[in-house]
C-alpha cells in the first residue's frame, strides 16, 4: 500500500510504456527463422506424469534416432524387462555399460540382465553369415536366433548389433514388435482365438478370465516355467468357437468352465 494513491498503477503503466519501445524478443515463426546454431539439439529431459511416474517407457526410439549416438538408455520397458542400449560401434562399450547402469539407478544383478552370462553367442555369427550380415534381413535373423535358443537372449542381440553394425535400438524394436518373438524362455503357452466368430461367442471374456487366473496379460512376458497367455494368430480351421489352445492343441473350454480349467493348469504347471 503506497502513500500516494494510484502510484502503483502509474509505476506499472510506466514499465509497460518503456517495454513498448524496446526491441521485441518474439519471432514470427515460421515466417522468420530463429537464429540457432546448426548443431544445437535442445536439452534432453525425461518427463514425469501427474502421478510422478516416469513417462519414458524405454522404447529406444530416441537412441535409434540420435545421429551421433550420444544417447544411452537403461531402464524397464513396458513388459517389465530391463534393457541397456549400446550404439553400433562398441569402442566405448565399457564406459557405456557402466554409465547406463549407474544412471538407471538399478543394482547390477537383475533378472533380465542375467541373460548376458550363460549364453554361447558363437552360433550367432553363423546365422548372420547365412543372412549376409544384412540388417534388412533382421526379422529372419531374429526368427533364426529364436529357433536356436528358444527365445531371444539379450546377449545374442548385442552380438548381432556388434557384428552387423545395426543399432541395438533397431534390433530391439523389431524384436519387441512381433508377437511371436520373445525375450523369455518359453513355458506352457495358452492361446485364445480372438477372431470375429470367437469374439461373438464370448472369447474376450474368456481371455479376461484367463488373464486374471493366470496372473498375466495377453502378450506380456512371464517368468520362466510359468504359463504364457497369447492371442492365437488365426482360427484353427475346423475348430469350434470359442477356441482356447494349450501348446497348440485345442482345449474343451467354455465361458463357465474356464476359471476352473485355468486354476487347474496353473496348479499343475507351477509345481
Amino acid at each position, binding site marked *: 500500500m503506497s502513500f500516494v494513491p494510484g502510484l502503483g498503477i502509474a509505476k506499472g503503466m510506466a514499465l509497460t510504456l518503456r517495454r513498448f519501445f524496446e526491441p521485441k524478443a518474439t519471432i514470427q515463426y515460421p515466417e522468420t527463422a530463429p537464429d540457432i546454431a546448426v548443431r544445437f539439439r535442445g536439452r534432453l529431459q525425461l518427463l514425469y506424469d501427474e502421478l510422478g511416474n516416469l513417462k519414458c517407457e524405454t522404447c529406444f526410439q530416441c537412441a535409434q534416432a540420435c545421429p551421433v549416438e550420444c544417447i544411452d538408455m537403461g531402464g524397464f520397458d513396458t513388459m517389465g524387462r530391463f534393457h541397456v542400449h549400446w550404439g553400433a560401434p562398441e569402442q566405448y562399450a565399457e564406459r557405456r555399460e557402466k554409465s547406463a547402469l549407474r544412471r538407471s539407478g538399478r543394482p547390477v544383478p537383475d533378472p533380465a540382465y542375467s541373460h548376458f552370462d550363460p549364453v554361447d553367442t558363437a552360433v550367432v555369427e553363423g546365422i548372420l553369415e547365412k543372412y549376409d550380415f544384412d*540388417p*534388412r*534381413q*533382421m*526379422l*529372419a*535373423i531374429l526368427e533364426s536366433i529364436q529357433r536356436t535358443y528358444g527365445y531371444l537372449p539379450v546377449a545374442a542381440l548385442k552380438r548381432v548389433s556388434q557384428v552387423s553394425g545395426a543399432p541395438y535400438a*533397431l534390433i530391439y*524394436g*523389431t524384436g*519387441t*514388435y*512381433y*508377437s*511371436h*518373438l520373445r525375450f523369455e524362455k518359453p513355458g506352457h503357452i495358452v492361446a485364445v*482365438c*480372438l*477372431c*470375429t*466368430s*470367437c*469374439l*461373438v461367442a464370448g472369447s*474376450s471374456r474368456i481371455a479376461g478370465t484367463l488373464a486374471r487366473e493366470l496372473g498375466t496379460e*495377453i502378450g506380456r512376458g512371464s517368468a520362466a516355467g510359468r504359463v504364457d497367455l497369447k492371442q*492365437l*494368430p*488365426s*482360427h484353427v*480351421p*475346423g475348430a469350434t468357437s470359442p477356441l482356447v489352445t494349450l501348446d497348440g492343441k485345442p482345449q474343451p473350454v467354455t465361458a463357465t468352465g474356464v476359471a476352473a480349467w485355468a486354476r487347474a493348469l496353473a496348479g499343475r504347471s507351477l509345481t
Partner: protein
Amino acid sequence: MTAASILATPARFPRLLLPATPAQDPLDLDAALAAGAFASLRSAVDEPRAGGVIDALVESGMRGRGSGGFPIGEKWRACARTEADRRFVVINAYQADPAVLTDRVLLETNPYAVIEGAAIAAFAVGASEVVVALRAEAADTIQAVETAVTAAEAAGCIGGDVLGSGAEIHFSIKPLQGSYLLGEETVLLKGLEGRRGQPEQQPPYSTTRGLFGAPTLIHGPQTFAAVPTILSGGIAGFPETGAQAFAGTILIQISGAVARPGIAEVPFGVTIQEILDVAGGVPSPHKVKALLVGGPSGGILPPESLSVGFDHDSLETAGAQVGSGSIVVIDQHTCVVDLAAVLTRYCADQACGKTIPCRIGLRRLAEIGARICEGQPRADEIARLTDLSADIVGSALCDHERRATLALLSVVRYFRDELDAHIVRNTCPAGVCQPKAAARARPVG
C-alpha cells in the same frame, strides 16, 4: 488343404477367381496350361505396344479388392512411370483378419491365376522381383504356392526367361507373422524389410517409393487373379460382372448364424441378402439382429441393411467397409453394444503405437464402450464417443484407426434403443452384459 467350404453360387454369379469346377489337382501345371493358364501373360509379352496392358486395365475400370478400392490401372501406370533401376511387385496375402481364409483358399485352388496376374504386373511395370507375403501359420498355402512357383519356373512361364521373351521375373515367398497390422500395405513393406511394422505417411505412395525405397506394386491375390481374366475375356465384358464402378467379383467369408458358413465368390454390388441366401439363409430359431461387415474393424449393420449392395461405396455409406470381405450374421442372443465394445478393444490392442489418436484415442474409445457395458456411463457418453471418433478419423495415419471407430459409431447410428437401454435404464436387452450388478458394486462417492 485349408479346411473351408466353398459355397455353390447361382449360375448368374460368374466365376472369375475360383474355378467353376474344382480341378482334380489345382497344382497340376499341365492341366492348368490346357485350361488356358498363362495365355494372357503370353499375349502381354507379345503385345507390340508399350504400356498396352496398362491401358487395357485402365479401360476396364477395375479397382483393387482391398479396403482402399483404388483403380488398379492408375496404380500400375504410376509405378511404371517412376524412374528407378529396381521395382517390386508384392502379393499381399497376409490376410490379417484371423477368421478369414479367402486368400488362402484362392491360392490353394487357383495358384496359377495369381502367379500369372503378378507376372503380368511385373512385366507391365518392369519389375523383375515378385514377393509373395503369406502368413507363416498357413503352412498348406505356403506349400501350395512353393510347388506352383517351382512348376511354373521349370516350365519357363516365369523365372530367368519368361516365355522366351528374355525378361526376368523371379518369385520369392516370404512368410510373416506376429502382428495384425501387417495387412496394411506400408506395414507389410516394413515387415518385408525386417523392421518394426509401423505405417508410413502416404503420399509418397508405395507405387513411387515402396519396398527398400523402390517403386512397388502391391495388391491382394484376388486382384492379381482377376487380371488374366480381364485381359483374355475382353475388356468390354468385364465391368458387366459387377456393380457399375466396381468391376469383377470378390471372395466373401460368411459366418455366424447361417445354415452353411463358408466362402462364396460373388459379383460386386449384389445385396447382402443375396449373399446370405448363398449361405443357406438364417435357420430358425435364429433371427438376424445385426450384421458385422468387414472384419474386426468393420461396422455393425441393422437387418434393414440386407438390401445394401456389397461394394466399397455402398458399404461406406451404410457405415461399414469391405475390409477383409467377411460377413458375420449376429442373432438375437448377442448384445451389439458389448460386441462393439469388444471389437474396439481388440482394435485398440492391435495398435502399433505409432500415432497418438490410435494408441490413446482407441483405448479411450474402448473404455467408453466398457463403461456403457458395465453400467457405469458418465454424462454425455455418446457425445464424447462421437467427438472422439471424429477426432481419430480426422487425424488418423492409417486405415486401421479410421475403421476401428466404425463398430461403436454404427451402434450409435443403428442401435440407439439398445444403447439407451444400457445407459439410461441400466439393462441389457440381450442379457449379455450385467450392467446392474456392476452398478450396485460401484463404491459410493
